């Protein structure tokens, strides 16, 4: 995968995803060492290009790069091209002239990483574009499920919340279905895109039906400031209808796990008592995020050392 852009799970084959997950499993061990650093990407430059603030994802990529000994530079930009009077093409050319070895991009508008990737020589990793995709999040979710359940094939995964505006939902839908899981989505009708089933999932507006027999229940963060009054009448009503708590979780499998991409609105999409302990695996997700991002950086920006698994057909 050297040099390849990671723009979305939609573009990844099952083999690609499995290679990334296996590589991440090998990276996990590095985080447990006394000296949490390997020289794999020494002398390489990684740019974290964030047009939208995201402390968690940015920090995770930064730690991942540093554990691989890359020089990590954070490049934060606020506002759109239009307000800056600089085009995306200008931004891409400017970065390209600095000769990075990988560029991680976060933007509030779908498709921006794709346009930058057309110009940038270095591989681009999409760290979240609008309501489109967030591939590293979905990959770390798959890594966590694999770790917890030992497999993904044949599992039932239910994603609950604002599916319409969620890049996490889209990437997880592509990823889990590609690895053979059954994916269901649930939320109020105002948060379910009318064409969502064209992505190969079943949509539910009844939470109980959606989580009946599920192995994994994933709650999405609600953008309360933006959506209250527009997509749901009140936080209280949302929490009562779609907020996960122990009571509602009874309908899932006994050993079901609860996931959340963070940060959690406690008492809204996830009851306080569910957020901290099993069945919640939220902190495992965060931990796995670093290993997963190390794997991505290694696969696209590294040179394969001797004995490393060979890259896929592409």
């Amino acid at each position, binding site marked *: 995968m050297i040099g390849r852009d990671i723009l979305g799970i939609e573009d990844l084959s099952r083999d690609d995803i499995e290679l990334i997950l296996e590589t991440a499993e090998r990276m996990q061990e590095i985080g447990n060492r006394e000296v949490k650093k390997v020289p794999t990407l020494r002398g390489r430059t990684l740019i974290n290009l964030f047009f939208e603030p995201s402390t968690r994802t940015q920090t995770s990529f930064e730690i991942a790069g540093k554990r691989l000994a890359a020089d990590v530079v954070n490049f934060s930009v606020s506002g759109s*091209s239009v307000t800056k009077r600089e*085009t995306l*093409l200008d931004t891409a050319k400017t970065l390209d002239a600095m000769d990075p070895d990988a560029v991680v991009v976060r933007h509030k508008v*779908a*498709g*921006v990483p*794709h346009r930058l990737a057309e110009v940038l020589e270095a591989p681009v990793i999409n760290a979240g574009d609008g309501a489109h995709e967030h591939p590293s999040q979905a990959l770390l979710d798959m890594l966590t499920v694999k770790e917890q359940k030992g497999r993904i094939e044949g599992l039932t995964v239910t994603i609950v919340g604002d599916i319409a505006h969620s890049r996490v939902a889209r990437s997880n839908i592509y990823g889990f279905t590609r690895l053979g899981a059954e994916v269901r989505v649930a939320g109020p009708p105002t948060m379910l*895109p009318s*064409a969502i089933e064209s*992505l190969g999932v079943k949509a539910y507006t009844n939470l109980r039906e959606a989580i009946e027999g599920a192995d994994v229940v994933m709650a999405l963060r609600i953008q309360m400031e933006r959506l209250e009054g527009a997509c749901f009448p009140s936080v209280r009503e949302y929490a009562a209808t779609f907020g996960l708590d122990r009571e509602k979780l009874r309908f899932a499998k006994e050993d079901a796990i609860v996931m959340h991409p963070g940060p959690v609105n406690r008492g809204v999409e996830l009851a306080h008592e569910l957020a901290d302990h099993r069945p919640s695996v939220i902190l495992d997700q965060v931990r796995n995020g670093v290993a997963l991002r190390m794997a991505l950086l290694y696969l696209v920006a590294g040179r394969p050392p001797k004995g490393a698994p060979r890259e896929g057909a592409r």
Partner: protein
Amino acid sequence: MARVLIRGGRVLDPSLDLDDTLDLLIEDGRIAGLGRGLSDDGAEVVDAAGAWVAPGFVDAHAHLREPGQEYKEDLASGGNAAVAGGFTQVACMANTDPVNDDPSVTMYILDRAEKDSPARIRPIAAATRGLKGQVMTEMMALREAGAVAFSDDGATIMDAGVMRRVLQYSKLAGAPVIVHAEDCHLRGAGVVNEGPVSTRLGLPGNPCVAEEVLVARDLRLAAITGAHLHVAHVSTAGAVALIRRAREEGVRVTAEATPHHLTLTDEATTGYDTSTRVAPPLRSARDVDALRQGLAEGVIDVIATDHAPHASYEKEVEFTEAPPGMLGLETALAVVLELVREVRLTPLELIRRLSTNPARLLGLEGGSLAVGASADVVLVDPERVWTYDPSLGFSKSRNSPWAGATLTGRVAATFVAGRLVYQYERGVSLR
């Protein structure tokens, strides 16, 4: 060049229901003869064997950007792009800066066009002052100054009471009201057709129903006022059905479709190419098929370009930030010839929708090769294969999804009032 004989072309004149191999004689800017074996005495002769000879096209919907946004287009560049696309008359929308809501702006446009544009420019004036949807414009004065229709175009009049009065009053001015039918609340932030593609791309969807509720509203208002409503760039199957029914009920409604809505689907946006961002958005294959059906039936009677130039730096931004619109004048003919090759339309019916119908809609002379008519004539080579390169075209802008595409069929030459204003190659050779 007082006399020109266009010899042996396939003459397509919808106004005469004529499709025949004939000679066409132009004299002193007017059509002087149409028939077989016309004398070439004293005339320059153009050999038109294999070509179509048609009345100049009339574009009922273009944005020529002058005054105010001359960095995108002006009446010279837009007028030259028009004749290169076979358009001898172009109606230009009112969203200039200042807005064409005052007779002085209308007169300014006509004055500049007279000097700069090889095509005849026909200003469309705003229906309300400042395109604000509140106070109607001085339609009588605007009409007298030369406005051919009234429209707030993309700034759709959302107040149905205002729209009703605009339609009523337009009858006094004797010109149609053109609606860009889109309910801005239903559209919201939508930038691509709402459906599987918007779901996949994660871009805000603009649903078909945003167009259909406005079309339904304005058809009812046209029915009760008896005014002439023209629906711009119809894009959905539902809107075609609504217009078909209103026609049957006798409502005075005409409608246009653009080359892009007739041939591209929302799948063209995969890859986030901002040149595919248009308003209304590119729709599904089902909608495209319904538009083609409506065009063939005559429910949609006009093909209009919605030529909307934007500077490249304005389009090289986030998809949601890119201004909507694409170029159209120089590619329209080649793009819609696909419909003839698919046998959805005969060449004569295609020319009717490009020329005769839009001229009639706007109350203009034109769209006819009858003896005595002004010699606005286009020669088309329907088999010509060419590659479109916007940087070699006449428009100042380059925002076209057909950039680099190989197209079939193009305009070989264009005459306005008997004067050769465009030729693709020197083959037509007139001096």
